[in-house]
Protein backbone atom coordinates (compact mmCIF):
# COMPACT_ATOMS: atom_id res chain seq x y z
CA UNK A 1 0.00 0.00 0.00
CA UNK A 2 1.34 3.39 -1.01
CA UNK A 3 0.22 6.95 -0.51
CA UNK A 4 1.22 9.90 -2.64
CA UNK A 5 1.80 13.58 -2.00
CA UNK A 6 1.77 15.93 -4.96
CA UNK A 7 2.93 19.50 -4.41
CA UNK A 8 2.04 21.75 -7.33
CA UNK A 9 3.81 25.05 -6.89
CA UNK A 10 4.09 28.02 -9.21
CA UNK A 11 7.51 26.92 -10.44
CA UNK A 12 7.91 23.24 -9.74
CA UNK A 13 6.01 20.05 -9.01
CA UNK A 14 7.14 17.44 -6.50
CA UNK A 15 5.74 13.97 -6.12
CA UNK A 16 6.51 11.67 -3.20
CA UNK A 17 5.39 8.05 -2.82
CA UNK A 18 5.40 6.69 0.72
CA UNK A 19 4.82 3.16 2.00
CA UNK A 20 4.33 3.77 5.69
CA UNK A 21 7.97 3.26 6.52
CA UNK A 22 9.98 5.17 4.01
CA UNK A 23 10.00 7.34 0.93
CA UNK A 24 9.70 5.01 -2.02
CA UNK A 25 10.13 7.61 -4.72
CA UNK A 26 10.56 11.38 -4.95
CA UNK A 27 10.61 13.26 -8.22
CA UNK A 28 10.55 16.86 -9.34
CA UNK A 29 9.17 18.41 -12.50
CA UNK A 30 8.59 21.86 -13.95
CA UNK A 31 5.12 23.38 -13.51
CA UNK A 32 5.26 25.17 -16.85
CA UNK A 33 2.18 26.44 -18.64
CA UNK A 34 0.02 23.38 -17.90
CA UNK A 35 0.70 22.54 -14.26
CA UNK A 36 -2.24 20.15 -13.83
CA UNK A 37 -1.15 18.03 -16.82
CA UNK A 38 2.49 18.15 -15.86
CA UNK A 39 1.58 17.10 -12.34
CA UNK A 40 -0.33 14.12 -13.71
CA UNK A 41 2.64 13.13 -15.84
CA UNK A 42 5.01 13.49 -12.88
CA UNK A 43 2.68 11.40 -10.73
CA UNK A 44 2.65 8.56 -13.29
CA UNK A 45 6.41 8.90 -13.82
CA UNK A 46 6.92 8.44 -10.10
CA UNK A 47 4.80 5.29 -10.07
CA UNK A 48 6.69 3.96 -13.09
CA UNK A 49 10.03 4.60 -11.43
CA UNK A 50 8.82 2.82 -8.28
CA UNK A 51 7.39 -0.06 -10.26
CA UNK A 52 3.98 0.62 -8.78
CA UNK A 53 0.54 0.45 -10.36
CA UNK A 54 -2.12 3.13 -9.97
CA UNK A 55 -4.16 0.77 -7.81
CA UNK A 56 -1.24 0.41 -5.39
CA UNK A 57 -1.58 4.07 -4.50
CA UNK A 58 -4.53 4.16 -2.14
CA UNK A 59 -4.62 7.82 -1.28
CA UNK A 60 -3.35 10.90 -3.05
CA UNK A 61 -3.20 14.33 -1.41
CA UNK A 62 -2.45 17.44 -3.43
CA UNK A 63 -1.03 20.63 -2.00
CA UNK A 64 0.46 23.88 -3.29
CA UNK A 65 -1.18 26.58 -5.38
CA UNK A 66 -2.33 24.12 -8.04
CA UNK A 67 -3.88 21.69 -5.55
CA UNK A 68 -7.48 22.25 -6.51
CA UNK A 69 -6.96 21.47 -10.19
CA UNK A 70 -5.27 18.08 -9.83
CA UNK A 71 -7.84 15.44 -10.76
CA UNK A 72 -5.94 12.41 -9.44
CA UNK A 73 -6.11 13.70 -5.88
CA UNK A 74 -8.49 12.24 -3.32
CA UNK A 75 -8.14 15.29 -1.10
CA UNK A 76 -6.26 18.53 -0.81
CA UNK A 77 -4.34 19.87 2.13
CA UNK A 78 -2.90 23.24 3.01
CA UNK A 79 0.74 23.72 2.02
CA UNK A 80 1.53 25.05 5.48
CA UNK A 81 0.36 21.83 7.14
CA UNK A 82 2.09 19.63 4.53
CA UNK A 83 5.31 21.56 4.67
CA UNK A 84 5.46 21.43 8.46
CA UNK A 85 4.68 17.72 8.50
CA UNK A 86 7.43 17.04 5.96
CA UNK A 87 9.96 19.11 7.84
CA UNK A 88 9.15 17.37 11.11
CA UNK A 89 9.68 14.00 9.42
CA UNK A 90 13.18 15.02 8.39
CA UNK A 91 13.90 16.81 11.68
CA UNK A 92 11.90 15.09 14.41
CA UNK A 93 13.25 17.57 16.98
CA UNK A 94 11.81 20.55 15.08
CA UNK A 95 9.40 22.74 17.04
CA UNK A 96 9.58 25.88 14.92
CA UNK A 97 9.78 26.24 11.15
CA UNK A 98 10.82 29.53 9.60
CA UNK A 99 10.00 29.59 5.91
CA UNK A 100 10.97 32.48 3.66
CA UNK A 101 9.87 32.05 0.09
CA UNK A 102 9.79 34.25 -2.96
CA UNK A 103 6.70 36.20 -1.99
CA UNK A 104 5.85 35.42 1.59
CA UNK A 105 7.34 34.41 4.89
CA UNK A 106 5.87 32.13 7.51
CA UNK A 107 6.57 31.02 11.00
CA UNK A 108 5.07 27.72 12.08
CA UNK A 109 5.16 25.97 15.44
CA UNK A 110 4.81 22.19 15.41
CA UNK A 111 4.52 19.45 18.01
CA UNK A 112 6.53 16.22 18.12
CA UNK A 113 4.29 14.60 15.51
CA UNK A 114 4.60 17.37 12.98
CA UNK A 115 1.17 18.72 13.80
CA UNK A 116 0.87 22.46 13.38
CA UNK A 117 0.07 24.21 16.64
CA UNK A 118 0.11 27.77 15.35
CA UNK A 119 1.30 29.75 12.36
CA UNK A 120 1.76 33.31 11.15
CA UNK A 121 2.16 34.32 7.56
CA UNK A 122 3.22 37.65 6.19
CA UNK A 123 1.66 37.76 2.79
CA UNK A 124 0.72 41.28 2.07
CA UNK A 125 3.97 42.85 0.97
CA UNK A 126 7.27 41.71 -0.44
CA UNK A 127 9.32 43.21 2.39
CA UNK A 128 11.72 40.66 3.82
CA UNK A 129 10.95 37.95 1.26
CA UNK A 130 12.98 36.43 -1.55
CA UNK A 131 11.70 39.05 -3.98
CA UNK A 132 13.07 41.79 -1.77
CA UNK A 133 16.49 40.19 -1.53
CA UNK A 134 16.50 39.63 -5.27
CA UNK A 135 15.82 43.33 -5.79
CA UNK A 136 18.67 44.29 -3.48
CA UNK A 137 20.96 41.92 -5.38
CA UNK A 138 20.09 43.57 -8.67
CA UNK A 139 20.71 47.03 -7.23
CA UNK A 140 24.07 46.11 -5.79
CA UNK A 141 24.97 43.96 -8.77
CA UNK A 142 25.57 40.88 -6.62
CA UNK A 143 24.29 37.52 -7.93
CA UNK A 144 22.06 35.68 -5.45
CA UNK A 145 24.49 32.77 -5.18
CA UNK A 146 27.33 35.02 -4.07
CA UNK A 147 25.49 36.95 -1.42
CA UNK A 148 26.11 34.63 1.50
CA UNK A 149 29.79 34.26 0.75
CA UNK A 150 30.30 37.97 0.25
CA UNK A 151 29.07 38.81 3.71
CA UNK A 152 30.86 35.96 5.45
CA UNK A 153 33.79 38.03 6.65
CA UNK A 154 32.31 41.48 6.92
CA UNK A 155 32.42 42.68 10.48
CA UNK A 156 30.07 45.59 10.08
CA UNK A 157 26.39 45.86 9.17
CA UNK A 158 24.52 49.02 8.25
CA UNK A 159 20.92 48.18 8.93
CA UNK A 160 18.32 49.75 6.74
CA UNK A 161 15.47 51.41 8.52
CA UNK A 162 12.65 50.76 6.06
CA UNK A 163 11.59 47.40 4.73
CA UNK A 164 9.26 48.87 2.15
CA UNK A 165 10.87 47.89 -1.14
CA UNK A 166 10.49 51.40 -2.51
CA UNK A 167 11.97 53.23 0.48
CA UNK A 168 14.64 50.61 1.02
CA UNK A 169 15.83 51.16 -2.52
CA UNK A 170 16.53 54.85 -1.99
CA UNK A 171 18.08 54.14 1.37
CA UNK A 172 20.47 51.62 -0.17
CA UNK A 173 21.36 54.02 -2.97
CA UNK A 174 22.15 56.61 -0.30
CA UNK A 175 24.43 54.18 1.50
CA UNK A 176 26.38 53.13 -1.59
CA UNK A 177 26.66 56.74 -2.77
CA UNK A 178 28.24 57.68 0.52
CA UNK A 179 30.83 54.95 0.05
CA UNK A 180 29.53 52.19 2.32
CA UNK A 181 31.05 48.91 1.07
CA UNK A 182 28.66 46.48 -0.60
CA UNK A 183 29.23 43.72 1.95
CA UNK A 184 28.35 46.05 4.80
CA UNK A 185 25.13 47.11 3.08
CA UNK A 186 24.22 43.51 2.33
CA UNK A 187 24.83 42.37 5.87
CA UNK A 188 22.64 45.19 7.03
CA UNK A 189 19.91 44.09 4.65
CA UNK A 190 20.13 40.52 5.93
CA UNK A 191 19.93 41.67 9.50
CA UNK A 192 16.84 43.73 8.70
CA UNK A 193 15.24 40.75 6.96
CA UNK A 194 16.05 38.61 10.00
CA UNK A 195 14.51 41.10 12.41
CA UNK A 196 11.43 41.51 10.29
CA UNK A 197 10.94 37.76 10.12
CA UNK A 198 11.55 37.31 13.81
CA UNK A 199 8.92 39.91 14.58
CA UNK A 200 6.47 37.10 13.85
CA UNK A 201 7.74 35.14 16.88
CA UNK A 202 5.62 37.43 19.03
CA UNK A 203 2.66 35.30 17.95
CA UNK A 204 4.09 31.77 17.83
CA UNK A 205 7.22 31.85 19.99
CA UNK A 206 10.60 30.42 19.01
CA UNK A 207 11.07 26.97 20.44
CA UNK A 208 14.03 24.81 19.58
CA UNK A 209 14.87 23.13 17.28
CA UNK A 210 14.39 25.76 14.64
CA UNK A 211 14.37 24.69 11.00
CA UNK A 212 14.86 27.24 8.24
CA UNK A 213 13.28 26.46 4.86
CA UNK A 214 12.16 28.09 1.63
CA UNK A 215 14.21 29.56 -1.19
CA UNK A 216 15.85 32.14 1.07
CA UNK A 217 17.19 29.38 3.36
CA UNK A 218 19.79 28.76 0.66
CA UNK A 219 21.17 32.21 1.40
CA UNK A 220 23.77 31.63 4.12
CA UNK A 221 23.85 35.36 4.85
CA UNK A 222 20.23 35.48 5.96
CA UNK A 223 20.61 32.25 7.94
CA UNK A 224 23.63 33.70 9.75
CA UNK A 225 21.76 36.91 10.51
CA UNK A 226 18.84 34.97 12.04
CA UNK A 227 21.26 32.91 14.12
CA UNK A 228 22.97 36.05 15.39
CA UNK A 229 19.68 37.71 16.27
CA UNK A 230 18.34 34.71 18.15
CA UNK A 231 21.45 32.96 19.38
CA UNK A 232 19.86 29.75 18.11
CA UNK A 233 21.46 27.38 15.60
CA UNK A 234 19.28 26.78 12.59
CA UNK A 235 18.73 23.43 10.92
CA UNK A 236 18.58 23.72 7.18
CA UNK A 237 17.35 20.77 5.10
CA UNK A 238 19.60 19.77 2.23
CA UNK A 239 16.66 19.04 -0.06
CA UNK A 240 14.03 21.49 1.17
CA UNK A 241 11.90 21.42 -1.96
CA UNK A 242 10.37 18.05 -1.36
CA UNK A 243 8.99 18.66 2.15
CA UNK A 244 5.52 19.73 0.96
CA UNK A 245 4.95 16.62 -1.14
CA UNK A 246 6.44 14.43 1.58
CA UNK A 247 4.14 15.97 4.19
CA UNK A 248 1.14 15.42 1.91
CA UNK A 249 2.07 11.75 1.49
CA UNK A 250 2.46 11.40 5.27
CA UNK A 251 -0.87 13.07 5.96
CA UNK A 252 -2.46 10.79 3.36
CA UNK A 253 -0.99 7.82 5.21
CA UNK A 254 -2.31 9.08 8.57
CA UNK A 255 -5.76 9.29 7.07
CA UNK A 256 -5.60 5.67 5.93
CA UNK A 257 -4.89 4.42 9.41
Amino acid at each position, binding site marked *: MLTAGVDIGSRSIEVVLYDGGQIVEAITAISGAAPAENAKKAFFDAMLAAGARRSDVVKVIATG*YGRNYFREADAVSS*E*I*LCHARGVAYVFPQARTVIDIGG*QDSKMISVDGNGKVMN*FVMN*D*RCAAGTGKFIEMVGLMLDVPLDNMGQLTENSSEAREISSMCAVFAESEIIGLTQSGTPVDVVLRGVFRSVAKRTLAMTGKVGLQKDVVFTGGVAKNAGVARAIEQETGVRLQIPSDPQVTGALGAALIAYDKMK
Partner: protein
Amino acid sequence: MNHEVDLVRDARRRGKGVVGIYCEFTPRELILAANAVPVCLCGASNRTIPPAETVLPSNLCPLIKSSFGYIVTNRCPFLMVADLVVAETTCDGKKKMYELLAEKQPVHILELTQKFEEQEAFSHWVSEVGKLRKKLEKTFNRTITDDDLRKAIKDMNHERSLLRSAFELGKEDPAIVTGMELAELRYRVAGDPVHLRMLEAFMAEARDRKKHGKFAAKKGAPRIMITGCPTAQGTTKLIEVIEECGAVVVVQETCSGMKPLDIQVDETGDPVEAIARKYFQLPCSCMTPNKGREALIGKLAKEFKVQAVIDLVWQACHTYNVESFLIDRFVREKLGMPYMKVETDYSDSDRERIKVRVQTLIEML
Protein backbone atom coordinates in the same frame (compact mmCIF):
# COMPACT_ATOMS: atom_id res chain seq x y z
CA MET B 1 -28.23 47.45 -7.07
CA ASN B 2 -30.22 48.28 -10.23
CA HIS B 3 -33.42 48.03 -8.30
CA GLU B 4 -32.02 50.38 -5.70
CA VAL B 5 -31.06 52.93 -8.35
CA ASP B 6 -34.56 52.78 -9.83
CA LEU B 7 -36.06 53.09 -6.41
CA VAL B 8 -34.09 56.22 -5.60
CA ARG B 9 -34.85 57.79 -8.99
CA ASP B 10 -38.52 56.99 -8.54
CA ALA B 11 -38.56 58.48 -5.05
CA ARG B 12 -37.04 61.61 -6.52
CA ARG B 13 -39.70 61.84 -9.14
CA ARG B 14 -42.35 61.55 -6.50
CA GLY B 15 -40.79 64.50 -4.71
CA LYS B 16 -39.11 62.57 -1.91
CA GLY B 17 -35.74 63.65 -0.59
CA VAL B 18 -32.57 61.56 -0.88
CA VAL B 19 -29.92 61.51 1.86
CA GLY B 20 -26.57 59.79 1.43
CA ILE B 21 -24.94 58.05 4.38
CA TYR B 22 -21.59 56.33 4.92
CA CYS B 23 -21.84 54.68 8.29
CA GLU B 24 -24.00 52.65 10.64
CA PHE B 25 -23.90 55.48 13.17
CA THR B 26 -26.25 57.52 10.99
CA PRO B 27 -29.76 57.42 12.47
CA ARG B 28 -31.80 56.41 9.43
CA GLU B 29 -34.96 57.00 11.47
CA LEU B 30 -34.51 60.77 11.25
CA ILE B 31 -34.11 60.64 7.49
CA LEU B 32 -37.20 58.48 7.05
CA ALA B 33 -39.13 60.82 9.34
CA ALA B 34 -38.20 63.67 7.00
CA ASN B 35 -39.89 61.70 4.19
CA ALA B 36 -36.50 61.14 2.58
CA VAL B 37 -34.72 57.98 1.43
CA PRO B 38 -31.52 57.08 3.27
CA VAL B 39 -29.04 55.47 0.92
CA CYS B 40 -25.63 54.03 1.75
CA LEU B 41 -22.86 55.45 -0.43
CA CYS B 42 -19.98 53.24 0.74
CA GLY B 43 -17.74 52.36 -2.20
CA ALA B 44 -17.42 48.67 -2.99
CA SER B 45 -15.54 48.75 -6.26
CA ASN B 46 -11.86 48.36 -6.94
CA ARG B 47 -12.28 50.32 -10.18
CA THR B 48 -12.91 53.66 -8.52
CA ILE B 49 -9.73 53.43 -6.44
CA PRO B 50 -7.23 54.64 -9.09
CA PRO B 51 -9.18 57.88 -9.71
CA ALA B 52 -9.43 58.40 -5.94
CA GLU B 53 -5.68 58.06 -5.63
CA THR B 54 -5.18 61.05 -7.89
CA VAL B 55 -6.26 63.07 -4.86
CA LEU B 56 -6.02 60.84 -1.79
CA PRO B 57 -2.89 59.08 -0.52
CA SER B 58 -2.72 55.46 -1.62
CA ASN B 59 -2.15 54.12 1.90
CA LEU B 60 -5.73 54.75 2.92
CA CYS B 61 -8.42 52.15 3.46
CA PRO B 62 -10.02 50.87 0.23
CA LEU B 63 -13.50 51.66 1.51
CA ILE B 64 -12.68 55.34 1.77
CA LYS B 65 -10.79 55.39 -1.52
CA SER B 66 -13.49 53.55 -3.40
CA SER B 67 -16.17 55.85 -1.96
CA PHE B 68 -14.17 58.92 -2.87
CA GLY B 69 -13.49 57.54 -6.35
CA TYR B 70 -17.22 57.67 -7.00
CA ILE B 71 -17.22 61.27 -5.85
CA VAL B 72 -14.39 62.50 -8.08
CA THR B 73 -15.59 60.66 -11.15
CA ASN B 74 -19.23 61.69 -10.60
CA ARG B 75 -20.16 58.08 -11.16
CA CYS B 76 -22.31 57.42 -8.13
CA PRO B 77 -25.96 57.34 -9.22
CA PHE B 78 -27.11 58.01 -5.66
CA LEU B 79 -24.78 60.85 -4.85
CA MET B 80 -25.86 62.66 -8.00
CA VAL B 81 -29.40 62.93 -6.72
CA ALA B 82 -28.68 63.33 -3.01
CA ASP B 83 -29.96 66.49 -1.32
CA LEU B 84 -27.66 66.00 1.61
CA VAL B 85 -24.92 63.71 2.88
CA VAL B 86 -24.83 62.90 6.57
CA ALA B 87 -21.44 61.87 7.94
CA GLU B 88 -19.87 61.19 11.31
CA THR B 89 -16.57 61.80 13.03
CA THR B 90 -15.51 58.17 12.98
CA CYS B 91 -12.07 57.32 11.55
CA ASP B 92 -9.60 60.01 10.54
CA GLY B 93 -9.54 58.99 6.90
CA LYS B 94 -13.27 59.36 6.52
CA LYS B 95 -13.44 62.59 8.51
CA LYS B 96 -10.95 64.32 6.26
CA MET B 97 -12.44 62.81 3.12
CA TYR B 98 -15.76 64.43 4.09
CA GLU B 99 -14.08 67.82 4.00
CA LEU B 100 -13.19 67.20 0.38
CA LEU B 101 -16.69 65.95 -0.34
CA ALA B 102 -18.16 69.07 1.27
CA GLU B 103 -16.62 71.14 -1.50
CA LYS B 104 -18.93 69.44 -3.98
CA GLN B 105 -22.03 68.61 -2.01
CA PRO B 106 -23.86 69.68 1.15
CA VAL B 107 -22.51 67.57 4.02
CA HIS B 108 -23.76 67.51 7.59
CA ILE B 109 -21.37 66.16 10.21
CA LEU B 110 -22.53 64.42 13.36
CA GLU B 111 -19.95 64.61 16.07
CA LEU B 112 -19.49 61.34 17.92
CA THR B 113 -18.04 61.60 21.36
CA GLN B 114 -15.63 59.08 22.86
CA LYS B 115 -16.11 57.48 26.29
CA PHE B 116 -19.74 56.79 25.55
CA GLU B 117 -20.57 55.54 29.01
CA GLU B 118 -20.14 59.05 30.44
CA GLN B 119 -23.22 61.21 30.78
CA GLU B 120 -21.65 64.32 29.20
CA ALA B 121 -20.75 62.33 26.12
CA PHE B 122 -24.26 61.06 25.78
CA SER B 123 -25.85 64.48 26.28
CA HIS B 124 -23.62 65.83 23.57
CA TRP B 125 -24.63 63.06 21.19
CA VAL B 126 -28.32 63.66 21.94
CA SER B 127 -27.83 67.29 20.97
CA GLU B 128 -26.07 66.21 17.77
CA VAL B 129 -29.02 64.01 16.85
CA GLY B 130 -31.31 66.94 17.64
CA LYS B 131 -29.28 69.19 15.34
CA LEU B 132 -29.56 66.68 12.52
CA ARG B 133 -33.32 66.79 12.95
CA LYS B 134 -33.22 70.57 12.49
CA LYS B 135 -30.89 70.29 9.54
CA LEU B 136 -33.22 67.86 7.81
CA GLU B 137 -36.22 70.09 8.55
CA LYS B 138 -34.44 72.97 6.91
CA THR B 139 -33.20 70.98 3.94
CA PHE B 140 -36.63 69.60 3.15
CA ASN B 141 -38.56 72.55 4.41
CA ARG B 142 -40.88 70.59 6.68
CA THR B 143 -41.41 69.90 10.33
CA ILE B 144 -40.44 66.53 11.73
CA THR B 145 -42.89 65.81 14.52
CA ASP B 146 -42.35 63.39 17.36
CA ASP B 147 -45.03 61.25 15.77
CA ASP B 148 -43.09 61.18 12.50
CA LEU B 149 -40.12 60.00 14.49
CA ARG B 150 -42.13 57.37 16.34
CA LYS B 151 -43.42 55.95 13.09
CA ALA B 152 -39.91 55.89 11.59
CA ILE B 153 -38.60 54.16 14.71
CA LYS B 154 -41.26 51.45 14.34
CA ASP B 155 -40.46 51.01 10.66
CA MET B 156 -36.71 50.78 11.21
CA ASN B 157 -37.14 48.41 14.14
CA HIS B 158 -39.28 46.22 11.91
CA GLU B 159 -36.74 46.33 9.09
CA ARG B 160 -33.89 45.52 11.46
CA SER B 161 -35.77 42.67 13.05
CA LEU B 162 -36.55 41.15 9.64
CA LEU B 163 -32.94 41.39 8.54
CA ARG B 164 -31.89 39.98 11.85
CA SER B 165 -34.22 37.01 11.54
CA ALA B 166 -32.79 36.39 8.07
CA PHE B 167 -29.22 36.52 9.38
CA GLU B 168 -30.24 34.23 12.21
CA LEU B 169 -30.83 31.49 9.65
CA GLY B 170 -27.07 31.16 9.98
CA LYS B 171 -27.69 29.51 13.36
CA GLU B 172 -28.97 26.36 11.68
CA ASP B 173 -26.64 23.41 11.96
CA PRO B 174 -26.11 21.90 9.41
CA ALA B 175 -26.17 25.17 7.50
CA ILE B 176 -29.15 25.90 5.27
CA VAL B 177 -27.82 29.22 3.97
CA THR B 178 -24.33 30.31 2.93
CA GLY B 179 -22.50 33.38 4.11
CA MET B 180 -22.55 34.65 0.54
CA GLU B 181 -26.33 34.41 0.38
CA LEU B 182 -26.65 36.29 3.66
CA ALA B 183 -24.20 38.95 2.47
CA GLU B 184 -26.47 39.61 -0.48
CA LEU B 185 -29.45 40.39 1.72
CA ARG B 186 -28.26 43.84 2.66
CA TYR B 187 -29.67 46.78 0.82
CA ARG B 188 -28.23 50.21 0.25
CA VAL B 189 -31.63 51.78 0.72
CA ALA B 190 -33.67 51.70 3.92
CA GLY B 191 -37.46 51.66 4.15
CA ASP B 192 -38.08 49.86 0.86
CA PRO B 193 -41.06 47.49 0.90
CA VAL B 194 -39.57 45.46 -1.99
CA HIS B 195 -36.52 44.76 0.15
CA LEU B 196 -38.67 43.63 3.03
CA ARG B 197 -40.62 41.26 0.76
CA MET B 198 -37.35 39.90 -0.57
CA LEU B 199 -36.24 39.13 2.97
CA GLU B 200 -39.51 37.34 3.70
CA ALA B 201 -39.19 35.32 0.50
CA PHE B 202 -35.64 34.35 1.31
CA MET B 203 -36.64 33.17 4.76
CA ALA B 204 -39.51 31.13 3.33
CA GLU B 205 -37.15 29.48 0.86
CA ALA B 206 -34.67 28.70 3.62
CA ARG B 207 -37.39 27.09 5.73
CA ASP B 208 -38.30 25.05 2.69
CA ARG B 209 -34.72 23.89 2.31
CA LYS B 210 -34.70 22.80 5.89
CA LYS B 211 -37.92 20.86 5.44
CA HIS B 212 -36.50 19.04 2.43
CA GLY B 213 -33.12 18.47 4.02
CA LYS B 214 -31.34 20.57 1.41
CA PHE B 215 -28.25 21.87 3.09
CA ALA B 216 -25.99 24.70 2.00
CA ALA B 217 -22.76 22.99 2.94
CA LYS B 218 -21.38 19.55 3.65
CA LYS B 219 -22.23 18.03 7.00
CA GLY B 220 -19.65 19.08 9.56
CA ALA B 221 -18.51 22.08 7.50
CA PRO B 222 -16.56 24.38 9.85
CA ARG B 223 -18.58 27.35 11.11
CA ILE B 224 -16.80 30.67 10.84
CA MET B 225 -17.55 34.15 12.20
CA ILE B 226 -16.23 37.21 10.41
CA THR B 227 -15.57 40.25 12.57
CA GLY B 228 -13.87 43.56 11.80
CA CYS B 229 -14.45 45.87 8.84
CA PRO B 230 -17.68 45.73 6.87
CA THR B 231 -18.07 43.99 3.51
CA ALA B 232 -20.49 44.98 0.77
CA GLN B 233 -21.67 43.48 -2.48
CA GLY B 234 -18.50 43.46 -4.55
CA THR B 235 -16.13 43.19 -1.61
CA THR B 236 -16.96 39.71 -0.41
CA LYS B 237 -13.60 38.18 -1.36
CA LEU B 238 -12.96 36.86 2.15
CA ILE B 239 -16.38 35.22 2.42
CA GLU B 240 -15.90 33.63 -1.01
CA VAL B 241 -12.47 32.30 -0.08
CA ILE B 242 -13.70 30.85 3.22
CA GLU B 243 -16.62 29.12 1.54
CA GLU B 244 -14.47 27.87 -1.36
CA CYS B 245 -12.37 26.15 1.31
CA GLY B 246 -15.44 24.23 2.42
CA ALA B 247 -16.38 26.22 5.52
CA VAL B 248 -19.46 28.39 6.07
CA VAL B 249 -19.55 31.98 7.27
CA VAL B 250 -22.45 31.56 9.64
CA VAL B 251 -22.38 35.09 11.00
CA GLN B 252 -20.73 38.45 10.48
CA GLU B 253 -20.26 40.52 13.61
CA THR B 254 -19.45 43.50 11.37
CA CYS B 255 -21.52 46.50 10.26
CA SER B 256 -22.53 44.41 7.26
CA GLY B 257 -23.81 41.78 9.66
CA MET B 258 -25.23 41.73 13.17
CA LYS B 259 -23.46 44.74 14.70
CA PRO B 260 -26.10 47.34 13.80
CA LEU B 261 -28.99 44.92 14.38
CA ASP B 262 -28.20 43.83 17.89
CA ILE B 263 -29.88 46.73 19.66
CA GLN B 264 -33.22 48.27 18.73
CA VAL B 265 -34.57 51.77 19.36
CA ASP B 266 -36.79 51.98 22.42
CA GLU B 267 -40.31 52.73 21.15
CA THR B 268 -41.32 54.52 24.34
CA GLY B 269 -40.09 57.79 25.78
CA ASP B 270 -38.48 60.74 24.02
CA PRO B 271 -37.85 59.63 20.43
CA VAL B 272 -34.68 61.67 19.88
CA GLU B 273 -33.11 60.38 23.04
CA ALA B 274 -34.19 56.83 22.25
CA ILE B 275 -32.62 57.06 18.80
CA ALA B 276 -29.45 58.56 20.21
CA ARG B 277 -29.19 55.79 22.78
CA LYS B 278 -29.39 52.98 20.24
CA TYR B 279 -26.72 54.38 17.98
CA PHE B 280 -24.40 55.31 20.78
CA GLN B 281 -24.04 51.65 21.70
CA LEU B 282 -22.69 50.53 18.34
CA PRO B 283 -19.44 48.67 19.11
CA CYS B 284 -17.23 50.25 16.43
CA SER B 285 -13.44 50.32 16.70
CA CYS B 286 -13.46 54.07 16.07
CA MET B 287 -14.72 54.47 19.63
CA THR B 288 -12.72 54.16 22.78
CA PRO B 289 -13.27 52.15 24.84
CA ASN B 290 -14.97 49.53 22.67
CA LYS B 291 -15.59 46.65 25.02
CA GLY B 292 -19.01 46.07 23.47
CA ARG B 293 -17.37 44.37 20.50
CA GLU B 294 -15.93 41.58 22.61
CA ALA B 295 -19.28 41.09 24.29
CA LEU B 296 -21.05 40.87 20.95
CA ILE B 297 -18.48 38.46 19.51
CA GLY B 298 -18.83 36.27 22.59
CA LYS B 299 -22.60 36.25 22.38
CA LEU B 300 -22.74 35.54 18.64
CA ALA B 301 -20.08 32.83 18.90
CA LYS B 302 -22.31 30.94 21.28
CA GLU B 303 -25.59 31.51 19.49
CA PHE B 304 -24.22 30.57 16.07
CA LYS B 305 -22.02 27.69 17.29
CA VAL B 306 -18.95 29.29 15.79
CA GLN B 307 -15.69 27.31 15.61
CA ALA B 308 -13.23 29.99 14.52
CA VAL B 309 -13.17 33.78 14.20
CA ILE B 310 -11.62 35.56 11.22
CA ASP B 311 -10.98 39.28 11.59
CA LEU B 312 -11.23 41.27 8.37
CA VAL B 313 -9.09 44.39 8.34
CA TRP B 314 -9.15 46.61 5.29
CA GLN B 315 -5.63 47.71 4.63
CA ALA B 316 -4.79 50.95 6.45
CA CYS B 317 -7.84 50.74 8.72
CA HIS B 318 -5.87 51.58 11.82
CA THR B 319 -8.63 51.30 14.38
CA TYR B 320 -9.68 47.77 13.48
CA ASN B 321 -6.08 46.79 12.86
CA VAL B 322 -4.90 47.86 16.30
CA GLU B 323 -8.00 46.54 18.03
CA SER B 324 -7.34 43.13 16.48
CA PHE B 325 -4.70 42.55 19.15
CA LEU B 326 -7.40 42.69 21.82
CA ILE B 327 -9.84 40.63 19.77
CA ASP B 328 -7.16 37.99 19.07
CA ARG B 329 -6.51 37.65 22.80
CA PHE B 330 -10.21 37.62 23.66
CA VAL B 331 -11.08 34.97 21.09
CA ARG B 332 -8.20 32.65 21.95
CA GLU B 333 -8.23 33.06 25.72
CA LYS B 334 -11.86 33.73 26.59
CA LEU B 335 -13.62 31.79 23.84
CA GLY B 336 -10.90 29.16 23.41
CA MET B 337 -11.20 29.36 19.65
CA PRO B 338 -8.75 29.87 16.80
CA TYR B 339 -8.49 33.43 15.52
CA MET B 340 -6.95 34.79 12.35
CA LYS B 341 -6.56 38.31 11.03
CA VAL B 342 -6.75 38.93 7.30
CA GLU B 343 -5.50 42.29 6.17
CA THR B 344 -6.45 42.93 2.59
CA ASP B 345 -7.92 45.38 0.09
CA TYR B 346 -10.44 45.27 -2.75
CA SER B 347 -8.03 43.75 -5.27
CA ASP B 348 -7.85 40.06 -6.14
CA SER B 349 -4.07 39.81 -6.10
CA ASP B 350 -3.82 38.10 -2.71
CA ARG B 351 -6.78 35.76 -3.07
CA GLU B 352 -4.68 32.59 -3.38
CA ARG B 353 -2.46 33.51 -0.47
CA ILE B 354 -5.45 34.23 1.76
CA LYS B 355 -6.80 30.87 0.70
CA VAL B 356 -3.68 29.09 1.92
CA ARG B 357 -4.06 30.62 5.34
CA VAL B 358 -7.79 30.07 5.57
CA GLN B 359 -7.49 26.47 4.45
CA THR B 360 -4.77 25.87 7.04
CA LEU B 361 -6.95 27.29 9.78
CA ILE B 362 -9.92 25.22 8.70
CA GLU B 363 -7.93 22.00 8.45
CA MET B 364 -6.56 22.62 11.94
CA LEU B 365 -10.04 22.74 13.50
